[in-house]
């Protein structure tokens, strides 16, 4: 894992409040698992049908009937339950999951999210992302600020097929923490050592920045 990804995860862990029900998407968000202390009373939901999963401890044997939605063999914590896929998505559609973390190809100024399909290149299917993005009360995006070619991922408007419209609450990248507000994207925190000018240059979206209010992370 890169230092940038580590920085994103450390910052993202501060978003989780004890007592919450949390869903972690495939990829970087799954790694947030390791940043939530085991004694913290949080139930992690995985859409294949478990509420209250945790990573296996060092040396803990896998139970072959227990995976998360990414296919990793997991264990459970006290208070956990298992259920079928219809129940799992009822929980999501009824907004009983408090916060979900997901990756992104593109996010835009009005909170649209694209993270499932690149026409002609990548279309393995959407999995549970559409329901989660549309229905979970708070959607926090964890992604790199720019793609591997340096192109901005935080856009004026998404160009790829959408996962859901106007669904994102907060975006955490290696460069900034941004909130989607009625006035557009407002920068909450900026990465240590990065200037406001550099941040704007790396971003296509218009950013609202009040330098007196800006946090560092």
């Amino acid at each position, binding site marked *: 894992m890169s230092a940038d990804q580590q920085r994103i995860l450390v910052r993202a862990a501060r978003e989780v409040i004890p007592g919450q029900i949390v869903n972690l998407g495939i990829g970087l968000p799954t790694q947030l698992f390791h940043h939530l202390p085991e004694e913290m009373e949080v139930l992690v939901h995985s859409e294949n049908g478990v509420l209250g999963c945790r990573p296996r401890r060092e040396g803990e044997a896998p139970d072959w009937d*227990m*995976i998360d939605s990414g296919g990793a063999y997991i264990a459970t914590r006290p208070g956990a339950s298992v259920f079928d*896929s219809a129940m799992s998505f009822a929980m999501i559609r009824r907004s009983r999951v408090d916060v979900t973390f997901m990756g992104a190809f593109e996010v835009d100024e009005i909170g649209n999210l694209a993270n499932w399909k690149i026409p002609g290149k990548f279309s393995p299917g959407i999995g549970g992302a559409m329901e989660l993005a549309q229905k979970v009360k708070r959607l926090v995006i964890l992604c790199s600020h720019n793609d591997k070619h340096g192109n901005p991922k935080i856009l004026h408007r998404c160009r790829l097929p959408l996962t859901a419209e106007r669904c994102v609450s907060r975006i955490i990248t290696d460069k900034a923490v941004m909130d989607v507000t009625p006035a557009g994207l407002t920068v909450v925190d900026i990465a240590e050592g990065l200037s406001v000018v550099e941040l704007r240059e790396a971003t296509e979206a218009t950013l609202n920045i009040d330098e007196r209010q800006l946090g560092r992370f």
Partner: protein
Amino acid sequence: MTLLTQKFRLIEEAIAAIPHGASIMVGGFGSPGTPFALIDELLAQGQRDLTLIKNDANEPGIGIGKLIEAGRVRRLVTSHIGLNRDAIAAMNRGELEVELFPQGLLAEKIRSAGAGHHAFITDIGQGTEIAEKRREIELDGRTWGIEPSLYADFALVHAERADRYGNLIYRGTASNFNPLMAMAAETVIAQAYRVEEPGSLPLEAIHTPCAFVSQVVEVTPATSEQGRRVHVS
């Protein structure tokens, strides 16, 4: 429906009822809950031109991955095939027709069929390309998408315990699509590690009542083990 007293069958006999061209729901999310032994028997018996309905395509070399590699699957209705590069390649070569649904919609389309409904209405996917393909309806001042139920000729499901009437108990995250498919298909073939005498399963613990199940076969955990150890992480 099969008489209660005639449901406990040999695996060869149960799978032999499936014809070429059948539509088959297959339980499982990744490996847990995938009825590996029933799938292997289907592979051995040679049925082809199949339409499979499964959350995913398993992984290369296991479960329905074997049926896809053997060219026996014409169409796959699924939500995500990212863990099976061979299935993606077959789709890209045009050899495998793939219909993709968001996972919760796929589950609900099956649940809806199993509950005896012909469709349901939903706002999931409104504003995305999912909505472009479906009919809409106005109700209470909003626009909703109409999602038809998803039916199948057969369902292959995996349970931890069963009795010979076909009552089923699932374990852990091996539940997933199994109880939904067990209600939705015309003929439901269940495999279980233990098929017990009626009366031995705790009443409150039964997930799928036997009324939905057509045939039940006993398999040893070993017949399913090959599928379980591929993707340890």
